[in-house]
C-alpha cells in the first residue's frame, strides 16, 4: 500500500492551470525522483502534498485514509516534511539552536539545556553524513551547502514518514553529496518515503528507485530508474529527442576576428595564445580556477592587459574598460546572472536596452517605446517566456533571465560574443533554446567564445576548444581530437 496517494490533483493560479490532473503515489521506503523543467509544476505539486497549498480539485490519501492537509503544520503532524530550496535558517543562531528551534530541550529551572541541545544536533548531523559541521557555529557563517545540510538535519530530527527535498544537492560539494546519498539510502531502508526534486539527471538515476517526470503541469512519465538513461529522461522533460548533438557548420569560418598573443594580466593569466574567426564557436574549458572567466575579462577590457597583445578585427585592442570593448563590437554575457548580469529593479525592456542606449534614440534621449519594441523582438527571436516588456526581470526563471541577458548582448550588434557559463543554473528546455541561439548567431557570422565547465556543453556547441589550466592555455583541440577524456586530461596539466 502507498504511504501517500494523490489522485486527480489540479491547481491553477490566476486562471493559468499549473497542474492538470496529476496521479502520484509514493510507498514507504521508496526514493522517487521528480524531474521536469522550471515551471513544469514540481514545486506546486510538492507544496500541495505537504499542505502548503490547497489543490483546486483532487484527493490525497495518507496510508489509505483520505487526509485533508489544510496547512504545512497539518502535513507535519502527519509526518510530512518539505525542505524548500530557499533556506529558512536563522543566521544569528547557532547550528544546534537552529536544529532544535521550537522544541529546545529544557533542563532544571526551565533553562535551556545547551549540552543536550548540542548532543542532539551532533547526532542529527552525523546521521546525514555532515560530520564536518560544528553545532556551535553560527548558521550565518556556514557555506550555502552546509546550511542546506543543517536544514536537512533539522527536518530529519523530526523523524518524518515522508521527506520531500527540493534540489538538496545544488550547493553541496562532491564529497558532501556522497555522504548525503549514503544517508538517504539508509533513511529509505528504515522505511521513510523520500521525494527528491533535482535537475541533475545522473544523481536522479543513481539514487532513485523510480523517476517521475512532469511537463507543463502533466505527468508524462513514470519509470523505474533501472534501465532508464539520460536521453530518455531529456526527451520526457523537453518533448524533444536529441539535445546534445554537435551540428557542423555548412560554411567555412570567415575572417579572423580575434587574435590573442602571449597575453597575460600579470597575476592570474600568462602566455595566452588564441584566435577566433567569424562564424566559429570556440570553447574555453578548464577546472574551477583555471582562468576561463579571467581570460574573457581580459579580452573584454574588464581586466588590464599587462603582457602580450590582443587584436580585434586585425587592429590592436588595448581596452581601458568594458565600455571600450563594447564600442569595438564585443559583448559579454557574464557568469553569475544575479551578481553581474541583471538589473534587478529594472523591467525587462530596460534590461535589454541598457548596453546600447544610443541605438534607442537620438541626441542623448532614449525612447521607452523603442526599448519595449526591442524587448518584444527578442522575446520572439529568443523565445523568452514573459508577460510583457514592462514585467520585472526578477519575475522570470533563470533560463529566461539568461535569454534577456543574451538579448542585451545581441542588441549591441557584436561581432564577437563572449559567453561565460551560458547555461549555468538554467533548466534543460532553456538550455536547448540557448544552444539553438548560439548556433544561429554563429551562422549569422558572429564569432563566439564560450567558457564552460561542462564537457558535454563544449562537445555539443564548439568547433574547437581551448583547454586552460592554472592560468595558462594548455592546448587547442579541434573537432577531430576533441573528447571528454582528452579535455579533462589537459585540464589537469598544471596540477
Amino acid at each position: 500500500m502507498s504511504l501517500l496517494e494523490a489522485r486527480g490533483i489540479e491547481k491553477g493560479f490566476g486562471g493559468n492551470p499549473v497542474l492538470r490532473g496529476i496521479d502520484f503515489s509514493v510507498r514507504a521506503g521508496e526514493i522517487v525522483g521528480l524531474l521536469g523543467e522550471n515551471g513544469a509544476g514540481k514545486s506546486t505539486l510538492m507544496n500541495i502534498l505537504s499542505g502548503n497549498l490547497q489543490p483546486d480539485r483532487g484527493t490525497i490519501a495518507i496510508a489509505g485514509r483520505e487526509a485533508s492537509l489544510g496547512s504545512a503544520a497539518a502535513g507535519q503532524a502527519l509526518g510530512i516534511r518539505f525542505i524548500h530550496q530557499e533556506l529558512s535558517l536563522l543566521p544569528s543562531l547557532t547550528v544546534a539552536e537552529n536544529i532544535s528551534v521550537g522544541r529546545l530541550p529544557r533542563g532544571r529551572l526551565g533553562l535551556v539545556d545547551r549540552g543536550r541541545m548540542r548532543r542532539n544536533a551532533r547526532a542529527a548531523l552525523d546521521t546525514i553524513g555532515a560530520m564536518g559541521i560544528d553545532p556551535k557555529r553560527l548558521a550565518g557563517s556556514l557555506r550555502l551547502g552546509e546550511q542546506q545540510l543543517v536544514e536537512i538535519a533539522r527536518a530529519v530530527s523530526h523523524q518524518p514518514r515522508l521527506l520531500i527535498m527540493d534540489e538538496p544537492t545544488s550547493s553541496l560539494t562532491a564529497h558532501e553529496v556522497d555522504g548525503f546519498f549514503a544517508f538517504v539510502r539508509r533513511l529509505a531502508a528504515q522505511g521513510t518515503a523520500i521525494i527528491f526534486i533535482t535537475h541533475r539527471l545522473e544523481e536522479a538515476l543513481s539514487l532513485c528507485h523510480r523517476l517521475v517526470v512532469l511537463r507543463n503541469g502533466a505527468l508524462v512519465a513514470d519509470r523505474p530508474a533501472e534501465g532508464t538513461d539520460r536521453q530518455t529522461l531529456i526527451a520526457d522533460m523537453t518533448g524533444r529527442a536529441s539535445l546534445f548533438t554537435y551540428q557542423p557548420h555548412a560554411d567555412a569560418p570567415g575572417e579572423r576576428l580575434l587574435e590573442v598573443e602571449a597575453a597575460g594580466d600579470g597575476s592570474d593569466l600568462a602566455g595566452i595564445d588564441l584566435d577566433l574567426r567569424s562564424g566559429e564557436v570556440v570553447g574555453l574549458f578548464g577546472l574551477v580556477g583555471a582562468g576561463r572567466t579571467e581570460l574573457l575579462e581580459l579580452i573584454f577590457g574588464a581586466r588590464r592587459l599587462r603582457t602580450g597583445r590582443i587584436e580585434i578585427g586585425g587592429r590592436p585592442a588595448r581596452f581601458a574598460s568594458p565600455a571600450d570593448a563594447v564600442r569595438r563590437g564585443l559583448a559579454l554575457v557574464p557568469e553569475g546572472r544575479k551578481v553581474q548580469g541583471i538589473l534587478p529593479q529594472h523591467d525587462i525592456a530596460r534590461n535589454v536596452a541598457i548596453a546600447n542606449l544610443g541605438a534607442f534614440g537620438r541626441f542623448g534621449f532614449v525612447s521607452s517605446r523603442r526599448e519595449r519594441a526591442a524587448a518584444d523582438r527578442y522575446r520572439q527571436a529568443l523565445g523568452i517566456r514573459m508577460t510583457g516588456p514592462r514585467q520585472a526581470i526578477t519575475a522570470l526563471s533563470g533560463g529566461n533571465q539568461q535569454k534577456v541577458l543574451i538579448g542585451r548582448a545581441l542588441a549591441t550588434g557584436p561581432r564577437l560574443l563572449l559567453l561565460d557559463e551560458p547555461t549555468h543554473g538554467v533548466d534543460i528546455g532553456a538550455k536547448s533554446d540557448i544552444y539553438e541561439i548560439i548556433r544561429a548567431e554563429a551562422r549569422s557570422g558572429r564569432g563566439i567564445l564560450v567558457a564552460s565547465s561542462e564537457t558535454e556543453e563544449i562537445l555539443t556547441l564548439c568547433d574547437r576548444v581551448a583547454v586552460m589550466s592554472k592560468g595558462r592555455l594548455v592546448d587547442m583541440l579541434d573537432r577531430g581530437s576533441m573528447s571528454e577524456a582528452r579535455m579533462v586530461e589537459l585540464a589537469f596539466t598544471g596540477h
Partner: protein
Amino acid sequence: MRRAHLRFLDVREASVALMLVAVAVYLSFASDYFLAPRNLLNVGRQASVVGMVALGQALVIIARGIDLSVGSVIGLSAVAGAIVARETGIDGLSLPVAAIVGLACGLFNGLLYTKLRINPFIATLGTLSIARGIALLLTGGLPVPLAGPAEFLGAGRLGGIPVSLIIMLVLAAVFVVIAGSTRFGREVFAIGDNPKASRLAGIPLDWVRLRVFAISGMLAGFGGIILAGNLASADPNLGLGYELDVIAAVILGGTSLSGGRGSIPGVILGAVLMALLNNAFVLLGISAYWQVVTKGVVIILAVGLDSIRRDKSADD
C-alpha cells in the same frame, strides 16, 4: 500590466503625497493663517531651494552615492558670488560665479570618489568642512551684501509667484526628462541598481558618477545664490545643516538609499513636505529647537520606512 499606468505616481510617491495632504489639512484647521496666499507662497519659496538642491542629490543617491557637502557648497558659492559681484561692481556675475564654484565643488567630490576611490560619504564629509571653512576665511565670518539679479531670483515675483519657485518647477520638469528619457538618466539608475552588471554592459561608471556629483554641486551653488538673494546678503554660515533637509526630501520622496530607485516628482513632494513642516512650527508657535529635533526624527522615519519596504520586497 496595469502597473505601467501607475508609474508616474507609484506607491512610494503616493505615501509622501498622503503625508503632505494630512499635514496641510491639519494646518488649515489648526491655523487661520495657513491658507493665506502669502503664507502658501512663502512655503513654496522655502521649498524651492531645498527642492532644487534635492534634484541633484536624488541623482547622486539613485547612483548609490551621497553628497553631504551641499549645505556648505550653498554657503561657499553664495559668498564667492557676492564677493566677485562686489569687487567687480558687476552684480550679474554673482550667478555664474556661484554656479561655477558649486560645479567645482561637485567635480572635486566626484574626482575624490572616482580617481582616489574615496567613499562618497567620507569624501563629501571632507568637502563639507573644507567648503565651510573657505567661506568663513573669505569673509572673515561677516555677511557680504548682495543685490541685482540674485535678489530678483531670490525675492522677486512673476505674476505674484516667487521666481525661485518657478525656477525650481522648471528644473524639476527638466529632471523628469533627464531621469526618465535620457541615456544619462538610464545609466544613473542602472549603476545604482547593479554597478557590476552596468560596468560589464559597457556603461562608463566613473564618467557617469563624476557628472552626477558635478550636477549636485552646481545645483547647490545655484541654490546658494538664490537663498542669499532672498536675504540680500551672503552669510558664510548660509545653508548650515541644509544637507539634512535635502537628503530628507529625497528619501521622503521614495528614493531608495541603496540605489537604483527614485522619482523626481517624489523628490519635489518631499521638499514641499519639509517646507510645510518648517512652516507648521512657525504657525503653531512651537520652539524652533523642536524643529531641529523633528527634522532628525523625520529622516530616521523616512530611512526606516525605506528599509522596511526593501525587506518586504526581498521577501516577495
